[in-house]
């Protein structure tokens, strides 16, 4: 654990010192939130304006932010691979899992900062949140599980890709579909059948349903139970870490 914390501290130091990255990572979720809430709410609220779209879309923005942060975590990983830092980890007497875990911890730390920004901006814009300590803790757990899972996918491709360009080409194929084939921007009931099926297979749907249930005062996906959401996201997290660890081990004979 000490090794993981040590690598995480180094990563966070680099993040805070890189102003373009740290400031950009705070502005980006605000922009998405403004775009999807203020910008799109007129299409979504209905003629009577009764539907609180801002509150509805807030968990979706958190999910999308996790996906973006995980993709950036993969970018850092491929940069470290290309510049020989990963080789340094591999030649050191540390657990093979430690650098990956540190990368995921870094992503989650950045995500938590970004989530606070999203919530603060959401509240300022008038979102209605039902916040209590237990809800926050469970919401936090959902965010962590989804973050681990998608970071694992990003790290898998970042370990396999021959260069940054190839990594981005593949990983960006996930980013927008994760958003649009889910309940982030609209309820899945409105989707055509095939999209509904894809949304059911998309782990982000379960994250957002859980977050809506926990934090929003408006009714959310009624079918899914919080335990099922936690279970599905736990399996997703496990899957992500498994494929990332296998891909990392594969770097040894990659060339």
């Amino acid at each position, binding site marked *: 654990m000490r090794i993981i914390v040590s690598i995480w501290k180094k990563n966070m130091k680099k993040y805070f010192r890189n102003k373009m990255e740290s400031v950009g990572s705070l502005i980006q979720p605000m922009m998405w939130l403004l775009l999807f809430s203020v910008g799109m709410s007129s299409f979504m609220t209905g003629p009577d304006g009764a539907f609180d779209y801002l509150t509805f879309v807030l968990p979706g923005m958190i999910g999308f932010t996790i996906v973006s942060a995980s993709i950036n975590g993969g970018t850092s990983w491929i940069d470290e691979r290309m510049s020989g830092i990963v080789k*340094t980890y591999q030649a050191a*007497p540390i657990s093979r899992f430690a650098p990956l875990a540190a990368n995921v911890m870094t992503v989650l730390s950045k995500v938590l900062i970004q989530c606070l920004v999203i919530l603060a901006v959401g509240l300022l814009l008038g979102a209605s949140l039902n916040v209590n300590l237990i809800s926050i803790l469970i919401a936090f757990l959902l965010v962590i599980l989804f973050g681990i899972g998608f970071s694992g996918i990003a790290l898998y491709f970042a370990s396999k890709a021959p260069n940054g360009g190839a990594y981005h080409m593949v990983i960006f194929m996930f980013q927008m579909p994760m958003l649009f084939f889910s309940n982030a921007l609209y309820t899945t009931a409105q989707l055509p059948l095939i999209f509904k099926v894809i949304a059911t297979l998309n782990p982000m749907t379960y994250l957002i349903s859980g977050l809506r249930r926990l934090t929003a005062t408006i009714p959310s996906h009624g079918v899914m139970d919080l335990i099922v959401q936690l279970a599905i996201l736990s399996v997703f997290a496990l899957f992500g870490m498994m494929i990332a660890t296998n891909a990392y081990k594969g770097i040894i004979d990659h*060339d």
Partner: protein
Amino acid sequence: MESILSIKEVKKVYKDGTCALKGISLEVPKGCIYGLLGPNGAGKTTLISIMTTLLSKTEGKVYVDGIDLDNAPDTIRKLIGVTFQESINERDLTGMEILISHGALYGMRAGEVAKRTEDMLNMMGLSDVANKYVNTYSGGMRRRLEIIKGMMTEPTVLFLDEPTLGLDPQSRHQIWNFLKEIKKKGTTIFVTSHYIDEIERNADHVAFIDRGKVIEQGVPSTLTDKYSKLNSEGKSTLEDIFLYFIEHSKGGTIE
């Protein structure tokens, strides 16, 4: 003389079928500077990657200080230091922060790192810039810091892959002086280089490899005596021998 590093019939066939090493055997005496010479693509980096546990081998055995690489790679990682061809590229960290984070991988605390690297930074002329960001360093300064990284854990064997590549004569001189100093303390240094004159001046033993096979090895002065007739003046250098071998080598044997 006692061997610290023993390589026995090591073969490496990559997944695409490329046979990079065709049965390399070397005995590296304890406490010496051992130079590995060969043209591009000869298999030098492949061999160093296997010995530093970054790459699996297809066949053969590697022992470091009597420890079998197959049975105890983690123990071997504690015994070795590695300086890769890539230069440090963590632009948002200072030289000292890089050393501290590297030391943490080996269980060293910040105070211990500062104490242990003080002399090394002096010898390498980096004391005054240790607390400056590495993006302000020249290429030579980064290489010197990278070598300190490899040496700061006080390894039994230090592996250096092209440590002076692309550096000015002053930096090269500084690096070789440093290596000769640490050799005096009993560290074995295994180095690959394209600068054959440097190896001739500084190495105690050399091996020539070409197309994955050792084609000659021995003490530099013994080899230059043995092949003295290659030069019209009867004073061959290692470079003359190297060029002769490269011209006449057919898959590891001399015509």
